[in-house]
Each structure stands twice: as structure tokens, then as C-alpha cells.
């Protein structure tokens, strides 16, 4: 028989928290293919749905098929879930582009893991950051609680915007470490997350024969791409609105596009993403002139929110946990694209690759580099954080 989903406070990894969130969201078609460190999510889900006739749990033979399965099931009208990591996400790359362009409201969890070659099981953000232009909303988490909460929000966002959402959690740092997580009860979630009701014109309905994604004229193809861009732009405000509603409904704060902490009038800012943002909070213990910004919604990029948050600073350090070979890091490049005339130095650092540590000491080193002349302030290459500063 299927297991019940617990509620209340439990000690969970983010993989376990994700599985419970998916159950609470009443996903009905779940596809899986194993890859470390995501696998625990689908293992837990397999136990949780075993024997249930109202849920289809499918073991596919590849991530490409797995994404195809959930895309097709979603088009045919049911809420879906799948999860992957690293090579799996890359193997499905073609389907990622297609899911957003077909406006499929998928929710997936990507448990971030470094990318081959050479092999690494450890975490960095290269896998999902390299998918930033596929038209997916990307939410990067810093705790198991945030993973659970973000999945519930993700279904609301995806099914309102009709865009796929990727909830990202760093492997092992979140997926295999445990923390106290507050699991809401089913009725509270049901009141927040209504059943899936996609638009009739979008839904695959055997009673209403149509051909989906047929070849259009170039001008129509271009118009469809523009629709995706418009939907992504509209999702910016939606992410904040859903987070506010979540906060009010569940009585627990939910970060919208950004988490801002520290001294709002500080001269120095540190911009991070993922768990590095959590480590950065320790810097506030002995630094009163520091503003911390953790980017939660990386796509659509929260340019207005970030510009507002950085409006008063002179020195910005941006920490990427992924390289962008031949250019700035993904987050660093985006921050540098903002119009921030008052900023004297905005330095992009790349660190934490393949599971290397980024500690408060690392971050302090980076802040000092930005303040000193040794940092490369205007160049088109990021500063790779050297060994030994953690």
C-alpha cells in the first residue's frame, strides 16, 4: 500500500522534502530515471505512490524519454513531475527547449551536480545554469524547506504562466544533508494549489482533433517565440505575487525573486545564488557595512528587483558556482548587464566548482579583492577563486 505523507516538523533531506512536496501537490504522472544525487526523490515517490490507481509512475529508459513522457502527459491534461541532475538534464536539453515553446507547465527538480568531464558527483550549478536560455523559470534554493515551498509555488507559477519551472537544489549540500522541515498538511496545500485546468485551446483533447506544434510560416514561428518571451516577462511579477500569497497562506516567509539581508544602506554588496547565499549570512555577524542579495529566481532574471536592491552600493561582488567559458560567469554577466552607474567596481568570481568549498572566509576574500585594485573590475573574464582561501 502507498505510504501516507507526514505533516508537521520532520528532519529531512531536500530530496525527501521534494518528494513530499510533489505528493502534496497531487502530481498524477511521475516519470523517473536514476541519476545521483537526485535518485532519492524518485525512490521516495515510488514508495509513496505504490499501488495507487490515480497516479501513473513510469520508469523510463532515459531522461530524453522521461521529459518526453511528462511533456506528453501534461499536454494530455494531468499534473506531472520528474527530477534529474547533471548529465540527465543535459541529455534532455532538446526537450527543455521544446517544453517552454509548447508552453507546458512542467515542474521538475534539478539536483545540481557538476558536469562531465572529468567525472564529478559533487555540486556546482553548471548543469542548470547552462540551460538558462531554454525558456524555463529557474528557482535556486538554499534549504530543504525552500525546496519544499518552492515546489508548491512552482506548480502555481507554471500553471498560471503556462511555462515550465525548474526547482534547483545543490546536490549533497542539500540533497543529502538533513534539516528540520515543516511539512504542511494536505488541506492547506489544496487550498493554495487548485487542480490543473489548462486552457482548452492548449489541451490535447481526443474529441477535438488538431495537430499540435505543426510547422508554421516563419512569421508565425517568430510570433510563437515572442509569446514565450512575453510569458517569461509576465512571470516576473507572478513569482513575487505567488510568494506573497504563500507567505500569507502558510504563515511562513517565502522568498520571491530575491532574498535581501544585511545593511540596506551598505556600500558593499555580495550577490550570490543557491546555498552560498546561506553561507554568506555568517558574514553579517561581524560586518555592518554589507548588503547580501541571494538570487532565488534566476530566470526570468529579476533585473528591476536587483537594480533596486543594489541602488546604493559602490562595490559589488558576484559569486558564480558555474563557469561560462570565454565570458563572465552566468550570474556575473547578468549583474554586469544592469545599469548601475554608481557602482565603482563589480567583480565576478567563480568558485565552488565540482563541490569545492565556498566558505564565509572565501566570500570575505572575494569582498576584499573587489575593494582592492587586484581584482579584474572591467574585464570580460571572471576571477576564479584560488585554492586556499576557504
Amino acid at each position, binding site marked *: 500500500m502507498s505510504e501516507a505523507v507526514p505533516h508537521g516538523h520532520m528532519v529531512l533531506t531536500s530530496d525527501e522534502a521534494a518528494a513530499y512536496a510533489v505528493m502534496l501537490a497531487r502530481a498524477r504522472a511521475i516519470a523517473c530515471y536514476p541519476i545521483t544525487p537526485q535518485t532519492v526523490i524518485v525512490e521516495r515517490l515510488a514508495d509513496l505512490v505504490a499501488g495507487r490507481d490515480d497516479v*501513473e509512475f513510469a520508469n523510463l*529508459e532515459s531522461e530524453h524519454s522521461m521529459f518526453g513522457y511528462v511533456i506528453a502527459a501534461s499536454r494530455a491534461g494531468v499534473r506531472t513531475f520528474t527530477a534529474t541532475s547533471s548529465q540527465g538534464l543535459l541529455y534532455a536539453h532538446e*526537450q527543455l527547449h521544446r517544453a517552454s515553446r509548447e508552453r507546458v507547465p512542467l515542474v521538475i527538480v534539478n539536483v545540481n551536480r557538476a558536469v562531465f568531464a572529468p567525472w564529478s558527483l559533487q555540486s556546482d550549478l553548471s548543469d542548470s545554469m547552462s540551460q538558462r536560455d531554454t525558456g524555463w523559470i529557474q528557482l535556486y534554493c538554499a534549504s530543504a524547506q525552500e525546496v519544499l515551498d518552492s515546489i508548491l509555488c512552482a506548480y502555481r507559477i507554471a500553471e498560471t504562466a503556462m511555462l515550465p519551472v525548474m526547482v534547483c537544489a545543490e546536490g549533497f549540500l542539500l540533497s543529502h544533508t538533513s534539516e528540520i522541515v515543516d511539512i504542511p498538511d494536505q488541506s492547506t496545500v489544496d487550498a493554495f494549489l487548485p487542480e490543473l485546468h489548462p486552457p482548452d485551446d492548449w489541451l*490535447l483533447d481526443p474529441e477535438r482533433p488538431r*495537430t*499540435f506544434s*505543426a510547422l508554421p510560416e516563419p512569421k508565425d514561428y517568430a510570433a510563437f517565440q515572442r509569446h514565450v518571451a512575453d510569458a517569461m516577462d509576465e512571470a516576473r511579477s507572478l513569482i513575487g505575487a505567488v510568494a506573497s500569497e504563500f507567505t500569507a497562506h502558510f504563515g511562513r516567509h517565502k522568498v520571491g525573486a530575491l532574498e535581501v539581508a544585511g545593511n540596506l544602506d551598505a556600500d558593499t554588496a555580495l550577490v550570490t545564488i543557491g546555498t552560498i547565499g546561506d553561507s554568506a549570512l555568517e558574514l553579517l555577524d561581524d560586518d555592518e557595512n554589507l548588503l547580501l542579495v541571494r538570487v532565488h529566481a534566476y530566470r526570468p532574471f529579476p533585473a528591476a528587483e536587483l537594480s533596486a536592491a543594489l541602488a546604493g552600493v559602490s562595490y559589488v561582488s558576484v559569486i558564480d558556482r558555474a563557469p561560462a567559458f570565454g565570458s563572465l560567469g552566468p550570474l556575473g554577466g547578468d549583474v554586469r548587464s544592469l545599469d548601475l552607474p554608481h557602482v565603482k567596481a563589480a567583480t565576478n568570481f567563480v568558485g565552488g566548482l565540482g563541490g569545492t568549498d565556498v566558505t564565509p572566509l572565501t566570500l570575505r576574500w572575494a569582498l576584499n579583492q573587489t575593494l582592492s585594485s587586484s581584482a579584474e573590475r572591467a574585464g570580460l573574464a571572471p576571477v576564479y577563486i584560488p585554492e586556499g582561501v576557504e
Partner: protein
Amino acid sequence: MAVWLEEIVSEDKLLLCGHAACAGCGPAINVRHVLGGLAAAKPESKIVLVIPASCWTIIAGIWPVNAFGVTVHLTPFASAAAEASGIKAALRLRGLGDTQVVVWGGDGSTCDIGFSGVSAAAERNEDIIYVLNDNEAYMNTGVQKSGATPEGAWTTTTPTTSPRSGQKKDIARIMAAHGIPYVATLALGSVPMLRDFRAKVTRAAELRGFRFLHILGPCPPGWRYPTAQSTEIARLAVESRYFPLFECDDGKWRITFRPKHPLPVSEFLKAQGRFSHLLSEEMDTIQSHVDERWNLLAALESRGNERGPFPQRHPSLSAAPANGSRIKVWRRSVCIANDRPRDG
């Protein structure tokens, strides 16, 4: 007989005139008889056609024009079988499980890039009909060699100075090795072949689980023959035993069409420009391979009611409850296993 013929060539409006196929397209005739046969066999069931990247991406019509009278879900090259599985699962959850979900995939998609997905869907015994529309090369991109391109054939990537070596992938026997409920080969070359064709489509519609129909799809521009001869080419393929018509129904093999006077395979080969470079001794080699395969099929058939050479892992599903109830009976045993206390 006349009444029967009239029934099967009647206008069913499932593939509409004005579609974008080439003149003389063999598969355009085939798809009409697949859809017409499925609709006739289960008139109460709607059809969802799942089509991976292929000529049919274009034949289906330039948006918003639509050449099909059934729902068409277009997919990337490699994921049609998985997506048909996903659609079937979702429709079952929505109480629409009697919908016939049908893949119409080419030989590149089925035998090459999407093969792992086809094999896996068969291994899961998904309740779908998978139709291989085999025109024996990548025709949509302009005739490049696929795993289904026959021995000796010219394609743009196997030029006449270095034609296809090795034999066409025996996809029907490979699929039968999965122990699925039904595998059949089909071709439209004559009225008796049409009867065989429609009987197999009807049989596929009656069964449940993974059903695989391998249809020969003569292609005038790719095979290099005049557009009026697609049916004649199919007839030569079957009567020369180049493309034997057989089935494996619940493990029982049967050759369903025996040419009374088998033609030499050279008659089939000489009718097409793609084989025009072949020397007579090369045709003899192809003939020997054709004979070997026919003898193998005859040996499989001679097993009679015995099971085929591969154990049937899946029970016959023809008696399964109708209207979309779950067919994955083995899932119950998984559930029982989960009732045991978990370690740790």
C-alpha cells in the same frame, strides 16, 4: 467481396486531400488504411496519432492548416514511444483510456535514434500501437542511409561507389523478441495484400498492450521509380519475398501471405533506381539472404502452437477488461513487495 472493398476504400476523412506528401507517396496510402482500419475496428474510440520528426511533420500541414482528421501530437525525433506512453497514461487518468494512441514513426526514428525508447516502451508493454512507416532511409532530409536501408542500396550517404553494406535491421523479429502481444508486417501491393493489411490493423486494434506494425512504405523519390508505381513496387517486394508478410500473434508465428509463384528478388531490385548499380552476382547474394530469412520465418511458423523462440513474458492481453482500466497487471506484485517492512 465487392461490398467489403467498398467499405475499406470509403472516404473516412482521417487523412484529408490536400496533404503535403509527394506524388505517389506509398506511406500516404498506408496511413489512410491504418487510421481507417483502427476507426472501423473500434468506432467508439478516438485516435491520437504521435508523430516524431519525419516527412509527416510537413505532410500534416503548414500551421494552421491540418491534414489529419485525428489528433496529432508531434514530437522530437527520439521520443515518440515515450510520449505515446505519457499520453496514454494521462488519458487513462482522465477516464479516456479507450483512446487508441498510435505512433506513426519512420525507420530512422524507430530503428536508429529512437530505438531505445521503442524497445523500452515494448518492454513496459505500454498499451499503444507503434506503426513503423519504413521507407528504408532518411527520406525527409533527402535519402540518407538508416539502419533499415537494405543491402546494396544507394543513398546519398552510401553512394553507388560505396553502397550500403550489411543487411537491413530485422526490426520485426527484434520487436517480437520483447514478447509483446502482436507484431506484424504489412504492405499494400494488391487486393489480397490489402485484405491482409486490414486484417492485421483490425487484430492490432482488438488487442491491448504494445502492438508493433511494420509497414513497407515505397518512396518514389528515394527509391527512384515513377510515382505511379508505389503499389506495384510493394507487390514486387512481397511476391519476391523481399518483404515477407507475417505476424507473431501472442508468440505464434505465421506467414500470412505466400506468393504462389515467388519472383526472383532481382525483379524487385531492377524496378528501382537505388539498386541500378548492382551487378548480377550482387543480386544473387541478396537473393540468398532473402531466401535465408524466408526459411527462418517458415521455421518459426512451423513451430505451430508452440511458443516462439523467445519466452512470452507478457500474458495475452486480449481478454483484459475494456475501457481504459490498467493493464499493467504485474504492478500488483510490486505493491505487495512494498508491503514488507522497510529495512532500516
